[in-house]
């Protein structure tokens, strides 16, 4: 808390604004959904939107703050999803109270994803730029392939797992939880919108605290100039690995929340396209800007739904909107135009320039 008060005012204001927007959005959505003002398709999207928000915030930590392009973020999501859901199923009889089970499942998902992030991070973070990006893509695909061929079962003798084909040889009464390419089915949907909201708040709190700490300054120093940061004694690998593992852990929790909202999950759901989708949230929301990530995640998840009236042209329109947004936000004339019509922003822009 003291740290937040000590922050530069602009930064503190931005952080409080982010929390405020999230809380306000939650209150509005919760009232709308309980007073039946929200359509059922929208209600069904609340939990996925929360999960995507956490994914976007966690990827923003790697891409925006730490400055490394990662194209395999969905891999961590799927590790978290599978381990978390498996945990939830194992605990089904032990813990009848769903919220506690959900919390433990998410923690388990986060731990497994963090472990995966740690193992992957050690080799990956030795590389730079586009090479790092392609290796994260490769790891995402490897995780997908492995989970597609992974079998996990439980019986009275404990846990059994096998690869490629089901050789778990469960005792009678045993239950096969993860069934290779069929994934996990008959999941009890215990993810709720309030839980999603809490996860978003936790993710924001973790990321903001990390960014405004010694670690965060280290991430940004390394992002801006690796060599200079190294020369003043920053342990580059340690800092990068911290960001990477943290981001993987949050993605794991988000993956767990996401899949506990559906009755079936398969590894193919978390493929390269999902990684890209989350990257789009981050870039569109602005790198390093958590509020932007959150808004972009919500907007781009709702957009395809809202475009439904254009039926077949829906995804085409989505693509056009995506391209146009990138073109417009990077157009110098339009930037200048907005600075002219918004008198305050020009001064602010120049001030930010001189601050930087």
């Amino acid at each position: 808390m003291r740290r937040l008060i000590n922050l530069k005012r602009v930064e503190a204001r931005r952080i409080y604004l982010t929390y405020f927007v999230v809380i306000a959005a939650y209150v509005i959505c919760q009232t709308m959904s309980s007073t039946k003002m929200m359509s059922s398709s929208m209600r069904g999207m609340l939990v996925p939107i929360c999960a995507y928000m956490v994914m976007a915030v966690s990827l923003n930590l790697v891409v925006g703050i730490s400055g490394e392009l990662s194209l395999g973020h969905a891999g961590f999501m799927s590790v978290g999803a599978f381990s978390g859901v498996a945990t939830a199923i194992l605990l089904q009889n032990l813990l009848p109270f769903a919220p506690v089970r959900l919390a433990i499942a998410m923690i388990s998902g986060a731990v497994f994803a963090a472990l995966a992030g740690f193992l992957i991070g050690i080799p990956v973070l030795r590389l730079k730029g586009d090479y790092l990006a392609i290796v994260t893509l490769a790891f995402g695909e490897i995780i997908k392939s492995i989970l597609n061929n992974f079998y996990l079962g439980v019986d009275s003798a404990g846990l059994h797992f096998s690869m490629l084909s089901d050789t778990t040889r469960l005792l009678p009464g045993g239950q096969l939880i993860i069934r290779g390419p069929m994934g996990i089915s008959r999941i009890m949907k215990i993810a709720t919108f309030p839980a999603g909201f809490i996860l978003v708040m936790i993710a924001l709190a973790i990321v903001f605290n990390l960014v405004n700490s010694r670690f965060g300054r280290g991430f940004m120093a390394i992002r801006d100039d690796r060599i200079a940061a190294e020369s003043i004694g920053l342990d580059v690998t340690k800092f990068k690995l911290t960001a990477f593992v943290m981001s993987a852990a949050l993605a794991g929790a988000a993956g767990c929340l996401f899949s506990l909202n559906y009755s079936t999950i398969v590894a193919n759901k978390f493929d390269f396209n999902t990684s890209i989708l989350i990257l789009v949230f981050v870039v569109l929301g602005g790198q390093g800007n958590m509020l932007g990530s959150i808004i972009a995640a919500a907007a781009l998840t709702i957009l395809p739904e809202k475009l439904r009236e254009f039926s077949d042209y829906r995804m085409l329109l989505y693509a056009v909107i995506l391209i146009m947004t990138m073109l417009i936000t990077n157009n110098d004339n339009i930037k200048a135009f907005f600075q002219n019509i918004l008198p305050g922003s020009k001064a602010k822009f120049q001030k930010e320039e001189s601050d930087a």
Partner: protein
Amino acid sequence: MVFLNFFISGISLGSIYAIIALGYTMVYGIAKMLNFAHGDVIMVGAYVCFYAVARYELPPVLGVLIAMLLCTFLGIIVERLAYKPLRQAPSLAVLITAIGVSYFLQNAALLLWSSNPKVFPSIIGRGAYKLFDGALSVSHVTVLTIVTCLLIMIVLSLFINKTRLGKAMRACSEDKSAAQLMGINVNATISLTFAIGSGLAAVAGALLCSAYPTLMPTTGSLPGIKAFTAAVFGGIGSIPGAFLGGLMLGVIEIFAKAYISSQLSDAVVFAVLIIVLLVKPAGLLGKQVTEKV
């Protein structure tokens, strides 16, 4: 003999990857962007070729030529409309735009040609050469693929190294502003690169669908990603690297399918890529750039 059979099909698949990877690597070398829409240009090329050959019953050679022509135009138009305004923009913005273009092409294809898979007629028939009393069978498509790939490789190397335009391309990839000062039209050179890459993608599309005859709007994405991997494998930006990377990737993939597990072949391919990059961080033939402080 079984080993040789696998090896030849690996080389054949690798040749297709190599042709696609050439497009990736040339665009990367000159525009420093990862063109994720490249895989979908392959798909468009394959569809155009399919309609020319199967519907309008044109000779296959003409079909491939039409596909090349249209894809070349497509490449130039996409570059003009989507990438050129972003020359000065951060690389991530360009990456997202490329992804947008990829979505656009896939969904446009979905609307134009529906999602039903089409059975692609082989552009050269389904025959095979039988060697060693039939112990080794090499299909015509395989031979055509390998020969085409070698031909493209030779012509492209000559073009890049011996002609004025090739020299301009090399100059642009090294230093754009210096190239401009030397009177090279940088924008035209970049357009040319996209044109060549997209034209090659059309050839790759026709060959890919002759060997694996299912054609869908998403046909191009996975080969696109694999070829991108191949380009990085060989050292992105390097043309011989793309060739070598493509061939090796194809061979590794087929061997992994045959001797390890067909379900895990993709994982094996990507694992080899990771190991190669850890030993040689700039790929097999990539230039190791030392940073100056």
